[in-house]
């Protein structure tokens, strides 16, 4: 009897304290990859989130911010377990992060079924943009197909007639391939989907030999994280430079470039890629973000970081609009939907499926004033572009 009373007293105490914590703090769970080689991406996101929290003085409206990082280990099952933990044990208000589409697809239900808000800071799988869209899901990045669609347009403009396509064999890889194929008007002469995950294929000798013998004008690839650097290196070693032009999405970024520079692979200078953001976008928020990130970490932030920074600012804008009252979910949702904050990419809006409607730019790899390799915007390829799955979303 006594034991029972003690237990209920403890439970009551725990409920009481968590109740208090609820009242004056906003809890945010951030799921990213902090182990395996993909941890370089996770670290970039973490650095950016920490910078964002510093910029807002760790406050959103009247509430203190309590942030919990979780590591998905680059695996959907671990990502889901960690998301469950954030939702059930930590009882967070927002879950954000998510580099990988397959991890997001596995984890989304846990957050959405619990009536919490899910903000993807990177992954944009077609499923969640279309049929599986949800009122509590928002993206601070893009839908997977959009960036390669922009690249397809650029290829048409440059007069590329035939293409060889390579991407990893997982949810996002398939979206990327579909994206470029949907806008590219020339012929796709061949396609390779390579093994992906913690034991991803990194030696592309067989695929590069196939690409070369296909005789295509150009090569389109999507290899995020460390695979990107490895790919560029092998592309150059295989002697394809100058034979088959390389066009990439999410491959040549601030994570790959310092390593390519250290490896002396100057062939990547001048190569083109598409993206919704670039370190050189001119607006006050971006200049502050990029310059302080550079000063602190000695390297440029990546788009992963920029989107994570935006995710925090998006949440802040919503918390401020509802004046810290997170119990009114409808109000929070309406506030998020306005995207009323200074995004580092510039102003954007949300479509019916809560994917951003935004510009996509053509970027070129250049050397900055201090000799660091970075990307610079050349032109705007798509203006206020909405993803093709929005029409499948009944919302």
């Amino acid at each position, binding site marked *: 009897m006594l034991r029972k009373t003690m237990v209920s007293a403890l439970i009551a105490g725990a409920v009481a304290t968590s109740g208090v914590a609820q009242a004056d703090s906003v809890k945010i769970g951030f799921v990213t990859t*902090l*182990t*395996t*080689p993909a*941890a*370089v991406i*996770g*670290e970039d996101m973490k650095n950016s989130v920490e910078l964002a929290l510093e910029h807002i003085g760790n406050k959103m409206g009247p509430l203190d911010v309590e942030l919990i990082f979780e590591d998905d280990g680059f695996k959907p099952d671990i990502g889901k377990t960690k998301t469950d933990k954030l939702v059930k044990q930590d009882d967070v208000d927002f879950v954000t992060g998510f580099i990988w589409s397959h991890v997001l697809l596995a984890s989304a239900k846990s957050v959405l079924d619990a009536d919490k808000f899910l903000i993807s800071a990177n992954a944009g799988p077609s499923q969640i943009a279309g049929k599986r869209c949800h009122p509590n899901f928002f993206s601070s990045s893009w839908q997977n197909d959009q960036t390669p669609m922009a690249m397809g347009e650029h290829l048409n403009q440059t007069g590329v007639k035939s293409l060889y396509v390579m991407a990893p*064999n997982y949810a996002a890889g398939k979206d990327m391939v579909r994206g470029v194929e949907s806008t590219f008007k020339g012929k796709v002469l061949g*396609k*390779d*989907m*390579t*093994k992906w995950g*913690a*034991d*991803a294929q*990194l*030696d592309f*000798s*067989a*695929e590069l*030999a*196939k690409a*070369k*013998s296909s005789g295509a004008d150009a090569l389109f690839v999507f290899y995020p994280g*460390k695979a990107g*650097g*490895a790919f560029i*290196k*092998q592309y*150059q*070693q*295989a*002697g394809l430079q100058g034979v088959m032009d390389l066009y990439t999405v999410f491959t040549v970024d601030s*994570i790959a470039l310092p*390593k*390519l520079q*250290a*490896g*002396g692979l100057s062939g990547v200078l001048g190569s083109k890629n598409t993206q919704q953001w670039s370190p050189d976008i001119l607006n006050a928020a971006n200049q502050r973000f990029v310059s302080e990130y550079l000063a602190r970490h000695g390297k440029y932030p990546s788009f992963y970081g920029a989107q994570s920074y935006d995710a925090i600012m998006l949440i802040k804008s919503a918390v401020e609009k509802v004046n810290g009252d997170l119990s009114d979910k409808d109000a929070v949702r309406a506030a998020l939907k306005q995207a009323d904050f200074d995004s580092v990419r510039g102003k954007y809006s949300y479509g019916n499926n809560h994917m951003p409607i935004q510009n996509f730019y053509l970027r070129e790899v250049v050397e900055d004033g201090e000799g660091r390799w970075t990307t610079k915007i050349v032109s705007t390829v798509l203006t206020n572009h909405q993803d093709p799955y929005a029409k499948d979303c009944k919302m």
Partner: protein
Amino acid sequence: MDWSLLITQLLNGLQLGLLLFLLASGLTLIFGIMDFINLSHGSFYMIGAYFCGTVVAITGSFFIGVVFGLVGIFIVGAAVEWFIARRLYRSDHLDHVLVTFGLILIFDTLVHLLWGAQGMAIPLPDMLNGQIRIGELVLPTYRMLIIGCGLGVAALLYVLVVRTRLGMLIRAGASNRTMVEALGININRLFLVVFALGAAMAGFAGMLIAPITEASIGMGNDIIIVAFVVVIVGGIGSVKGAFYAALILGMMDTLSRSYLDVVLGWFMPVTYAETAAPALSAMLIYILMAAVLAFRPQGLFPPAGAK
């Protein structure tokens, strides 16, 4: 038929096979002679790459990096044998697996602490970054170097195993360990040398691949599974078996990656073939292993006299 593509792919298969051989030869000796399952063999592959990369970053010379890397990884291998493996030879396989799995985690974390998560690019001298042209064929110089090194090590190992006293002991140990001990051979020293040699070969493989794929945490864990398949297909304890099995698996993997989608396209719609081919080519080596285990469980080339 595109012959230059086929030749390129055969050479790519040979390169992959020789890398697998460098890993698997040490593994098969350690497994065959000491009856020790070393899951952390892949960690030597990773550490070799990081040692080499660090020395290259300091000295700027890839060759000095390889030499220092080899010495370093030999010492690490010897230390692992001396302090850890030695205590476990008499325990059963489950203990080996548990301890060496623990070692993987320790080595991965140590590398994370020492070198960070971002991986390490190893720059090559310009002459190795180019290509060799033979008629229509354009072959990356560095991949040819890997093939040369792999064949060289295989030849050295052959001489060592077949022509020297140490090799005789190694072969005897693989066939019948108890008898070697009974004849008064210092088995501890033999084990130490074989273990360190195996580690050095694994490390060498890591150094060779790192300029292509970069050194990264856990890089050995991906390939060690395939190396175990090589050991099983080739016959446990057989260096010759490891050599042939590594080449067979390397070729099979490369050729299926290059031609399976075309072949499948003859039987099914192209869109299905495109999805099925990568999945199937990732499975092929395991299908081969299953077939070998079913029809010839001692492996294709078991050591003479092995039970």
